[in-house]
């Protein structure tokens, strides 16, 4: 199959306008004849469901949590980018586009990124109209802060709870449509399969997480907005319920999976401190605006941070990258932290931490100002560590945070399965090999409010649709398969808990497919994953009942999919014989230890096609062409 990204012709700044004009429209009176399934209620799913309903479509919206308001997007802290140039500091659509392509280490599709930068402005307008209480200046204008990988101040925020406020905005719009009867909401449901009829996505099969019933739903199109798969590492900053199964089930049904190995390791998280730990907590990147990162100059220096004089501190980011300093992109900051710790300069009990110090900012601006900007983050830190960051520097270490890979989509956000769309973090989309801070919220909302509502209309208007109900045999088949799998999980009756398998998988992935990778390690990891998977199906212990609340069963299904998906990640990582952004293969680095790309051979999106259990996935390449941004070695010096 030849991948066609369907990028419109013409100058980059006109592509989206032209495309919107060329897309066929669904007559307003006909919209109510179409049913659309949206899986997920995060920024991408919530915005899409609300907007499609506003347009007149009938929407069925699904989520795992007990309320759509609790999707993982709620946890985003730092902010959302938009090319508003309110600070008059030289920002523009073009600059946001450029920063994003460069930040992504030249592995994103130019046309998509440009559109993202264009619609970024509308998102802020929409948010303010919904009543989102963004931070303001004294004069009443919107405030901005800076984020990594940019030299302009374009990040909008609501204290340290930007994701919460944006999600509650989308949830408010969604609630309005639920009340209007245009969205039917299905919370506490987990999608376990995609249903395809005549080659098109026509429905899903879910498990009701309260009574265990396997349910089926039909529609004219299906939109995936199921978030990222960082939890394949067990420990990550993601919420507990984040998973890959919805996206993975689509992959098994024919949707190609793009760049699965691109993983973002976030530099500023609270370090790991025990094997009972269930997740890692992010300390927003925005802290790097005022916090200074350092380690003791002398390896093994065990003095308390306050006792180490400035002359014996190594502010390694400021020294190595004078123009970006503490605000280098995440992949660069993370790798540098690892390097310092590997060289014995790490601090704290485990030696796997660096300092993020606010002493100078507090001296300069006063504690009040710092508290206003970051108060809730400081409080969060104190609750977890029992240390007060106003008094002692924070200790931080990199942790898995975001996954750039995801379902492959074309310019219309449609996957390789007709009628199956993917939005937000669950598509591979716009961030290339490394996402810039504050750009995931932007992308999720851009997809949901401003892209999918148009492109899905173009699809529906252009297709002749046969009526399909859930009585169709394809639904029966799919339900049968799902039930069989659930039955199988419940009957293994082994001796090892599902969490224990998940932790073991996490260790393998972090060790061999984490911040730094090499060919031997990846090959070893593949074997280890296969072994662990085989053991899982013989020795996993899933207690409880099938037709009841059963959280162990939920986890078991997710871990089973992670165990398959992890292998695909490793295969992808092994195949990409270069380093780029979040994929760092130790064999490919510059003299200064930066990621060394191979544009000659790897300037493409790797899209993997499923060939069934036991078969290796097949690689398809979407070549990336850079007409507007010159391919260069990234430099943040």
């Amino acid at each position, binding site marked *: 199959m030849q991948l066609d990204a369907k990028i419109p012709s013409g100058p980059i700044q006109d592509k989206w306008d032209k495309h919107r004009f060329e897309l066929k429209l669904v007559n307003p009176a006909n919209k109510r004849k179409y049913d659309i399934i949206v899986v997920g209620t995060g920024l991408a799913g919530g915005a899409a469901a609300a907007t499609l309903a506003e347009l007149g479509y009938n929407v069925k919206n699904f989520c795992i*949590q007990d309320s759509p308001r609790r999707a993982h997007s709620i946890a985003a802290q730092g902010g959302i980018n938009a090319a508003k140039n309110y600070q008059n500091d030289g920002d523009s659509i073009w600059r946001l586009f450029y920063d994003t392509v460069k930040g992504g280490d030249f592995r994103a599709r130019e046309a998509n990124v440009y559109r993202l930068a264009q619609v970024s402005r509308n998102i802020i*307008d929409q948010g303010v109209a919904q009543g989102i209480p963004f931070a303001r200046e004294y004069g009443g204008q919107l405030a901005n802060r800076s984020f990594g990988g940019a030299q302009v101040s374009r990040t909008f925020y609501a204290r340290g709870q930007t994701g919460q406020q944006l999600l509650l905005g989308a949830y408010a*719009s969604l609630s*309005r449509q639920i009340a209007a009867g245009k969205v039917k909401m299905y919370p506490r449901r987990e999608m376990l399969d995609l249903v395809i009829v005549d080659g098109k996505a026509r429905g899903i099969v879910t498990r009701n997480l309260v009574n265990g019933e396997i349910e089926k739903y039909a529609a004219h199109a299906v939109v995936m907005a199921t978030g990222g798969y960082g939890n394949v590492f067990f420990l990550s900053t993601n919420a507990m319920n984040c998973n890959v199964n919805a996206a993975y089930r689509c992959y098994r049904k024919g949707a190609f999976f793009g760049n699965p190995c691109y993983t973002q390791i976030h530099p500023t998280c609270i370090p790991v401190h025990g094997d009972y730990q269930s997740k890692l907590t992010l300390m927003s990147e925005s802290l790097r605006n005022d916090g200074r990162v350092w380690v003791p100059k002398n390896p093994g220096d065990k003095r308390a941070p306050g006792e180490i004089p400035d002359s014996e501190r190594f502010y390694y980011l400021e020294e190595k990258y004078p123009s970006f300093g503490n605000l280098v992109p995440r992949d660069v900051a993370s790798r540098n932290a690892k390097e310092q710790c590997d060289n014995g300069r790490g601090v704290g009990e485990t030696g796997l931490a660096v300092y993020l110090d606010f002493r100078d900012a507090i001296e300069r601006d006063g504690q009040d100002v710092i508290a206003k900007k970051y108060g809730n983050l400081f409080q969060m830190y104190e609750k977890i560590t029992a240390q007060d960051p106003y008094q002692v520097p924070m200790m931080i270490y990199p942790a898995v945070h975001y996954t750039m890979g995801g379902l492959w989509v074309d310019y219309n956000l449609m996957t390789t399965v007709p009628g199956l769309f993917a939005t937000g973090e669950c598509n591979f989309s716009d961030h290339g090999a490394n996402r810039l801070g504050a750009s995931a919220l932007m992308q999720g909302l851009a997809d949901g409010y401003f892209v999918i509502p148009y492109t899905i209309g173009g699809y529906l208007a252009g297709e002749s649709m046969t009526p399909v109900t859930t009585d169709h045999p394809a639904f029966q088949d799919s339900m049968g398969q799902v039930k069989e799998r659930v039955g199988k999980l419940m009957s293994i009756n082994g001796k090892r808990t599902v969490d224990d398998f998940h932790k073991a998988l996490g260790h393998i992935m972090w060790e061999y497919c984490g911040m730094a990778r090499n060919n031997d390690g990846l090959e070893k990891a593949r074997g280890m994953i296969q072994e662990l998977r085989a053991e899982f199906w013989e020795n996993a*212990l899933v207690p409880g009942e099938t037709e009841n609340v059963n959280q162990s069963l939920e986890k078991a299904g997710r871990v089973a999919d992670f165990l398959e998906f992890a292998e695909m990640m490793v295969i992808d990582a092994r195949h990409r014989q270069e380093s780029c952004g979040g994929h760092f293969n130790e064999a490919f680095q510059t003299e200064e230890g930066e990621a060394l790309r191979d544009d000659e051979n790897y300037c493409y999106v790797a899209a993997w096609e499923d060939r069934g259990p036991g078969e290796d996935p097949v690689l398809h390449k979407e070549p990336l062409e850079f007409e507007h941004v010159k391919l260069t070695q990234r430099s943040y010096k």
Partner: protein
Amino acid sequence: MTSKAINLTLKVWRQNGRKDKGRFEEYKANNISTDMSFLEMLDVVNEELTLSGQDPIAFDSDCREGICGQCGCVVDGHPHGHEKGTTLCQLHMRHFEDGDTVVIEPFRARAFKVLKDLMIDRSAMDGIIQAGGFVSVNAGGAPDANAIPISQEIAEKAMDAAQCIGCGACVAACPNASAMLFTSAKISHLALLPQGKPEAARRALSMIREMDALGFGNCSNERECEAECPKEISIVNIARANREFLKAGFFSSVM
């Protein structure tokens, strides 16, 4: 961080589904690191229950950093436990003493239903928002975000109210099982901002009526909600919502 290990006795509410009557059962939680969060402590207990062939305790959680509002149960009589301004997932075991007996039960209210053990159905709170907790604006066509200046003070006040995580602890804390703190936080947040003003009175009327219809109790100024709210939402919001409600009542009576 100096961590030590403590041993606890847990009395946990077990209820296998809506129809079960439910009862407390006792478990030992041994060798619990004081650096663990409360939910991690429950994870550890659940691993042991699983390995010994028993049914693990069902409880909700997602973000585990105090923002999603999915977690929460009553610990020793306090929703989210005794620490101020803390969700259950943020409560750490260093706040317990070796040998403590800890009583854990679900949030209880007429409008909430126990689904299993500590897990409840709080969908009635979504119902309150659906009755008007929004600005009626469609995507597209919004004016420039800086077109209407909003003073920093107002934006901050709106944000104070908007921080509510919808956890339902206020309902569980209230002797009347009222959702007034939750409802008023949303009414206030939107009424403070110019974008929310046009619908403010109607919104207040319809949300408060819906709250009653969904089986939540009335607010009789008991203030327990404020004391237990993990986000420290202030009862000033209730006064503000009542003002909007009265305005609406006045208009609808003269119309």
